[in-house]
């Protein structure tokens, strides 16, 4: 095995293990922290794929913003289900069965694909993926329209989130 493969296997096992802990651990704060570990593992996978910009965005946006948002939400709603009582619903075995069947189906589908064992083409020397990505995101012949739609989506989500979470009574009567 080459060093690449050894690094990939270690990263993949750690990521899948912490991803598993996210869905089974009882304490939700711990689940959010395991999610941070999983996201770090995925960032390392991006680095292995030469997608360095995605790795940085993963750390900044996912770990820096989304995971912290989750921890805030868990803390704000924690009074309800501390660590007592079941954290999984009574049909959890059906969910587990469905997940295993989905994995089996995907595995079976991938086995029948001819390009399955293909290795990556050599990374062109002097190729600057980040400036290429910037060009693609801003050029009219590239992806400027999806880029703008994404920014509109973010603004709409921001306004919607503020509107949904806004409590008009909170100013007068404290509950």
């Amino acid at each position, binding site marked *: 095995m080459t060093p690449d493969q050894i690094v990939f296997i270690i990263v993949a096992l750690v990521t899948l293990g912490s991803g598993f802990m996210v869905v089974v651990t009882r304490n939700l704060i711990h689940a959010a922290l395991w999610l941070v570990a999983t996201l770090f593992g995925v960032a390392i996978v991006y680095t292995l794929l030469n997608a360095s910009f995605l790795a940085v965005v993963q750390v900044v946006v996912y770990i820096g913003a989304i995971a912290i*948002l989750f921890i805030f939400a868990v803390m*704000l709603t924690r009074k*309800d289900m501390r660590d007592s009582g079941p954290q999984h619903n009574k049909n959890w075995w059906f969910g587990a069965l469905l997940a295993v069947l989905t*994995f089996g189906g995907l595995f079976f589908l991938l086995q029948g694909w001819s390009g399955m064992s293909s290795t990556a083409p050599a990374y062109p020397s002097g190729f600057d993926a980040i400036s290429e990505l910037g060009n693609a995101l801003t050029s009219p012949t590239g992806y400027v329209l999806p880029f703008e739609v994404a920014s509109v989506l973010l603004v709409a*989500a921001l306004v919607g989130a503020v509107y949904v979470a806004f409590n008009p009574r909170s100013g007068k009567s404290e*509950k």
Partner: protein
Amino acid sequence: MVPISWYLIFAAALFCIGLFGVLSRRNAVAILLGVELMLNAVNINLAAFWRYGNVTQMAGQVFAIIVFAVAAAEVAVGLALVISVYRRRNTVVADDIDMMKW
């Protein structure tokens, strides 16, 4: 070099772990954690196909960035909904949020 199948199987396993979390958790915040795992699995697939296809075509990375934006929007709105429901109903258990069920 690592063959593409390793990345695809890894992403499929991560997706199924997230699927299990979405289907089996009672807490609405934990369900959103499962959705995040599924989105990450999709992003790994996009990046892997970008790297193993034509590297000079940036479509895979552009789509991954769109997925990042959608995930951020989804988490913001989802957690706002959870907190709003928690204020009104004092619960975050997904089974108990049945106002629209008849």
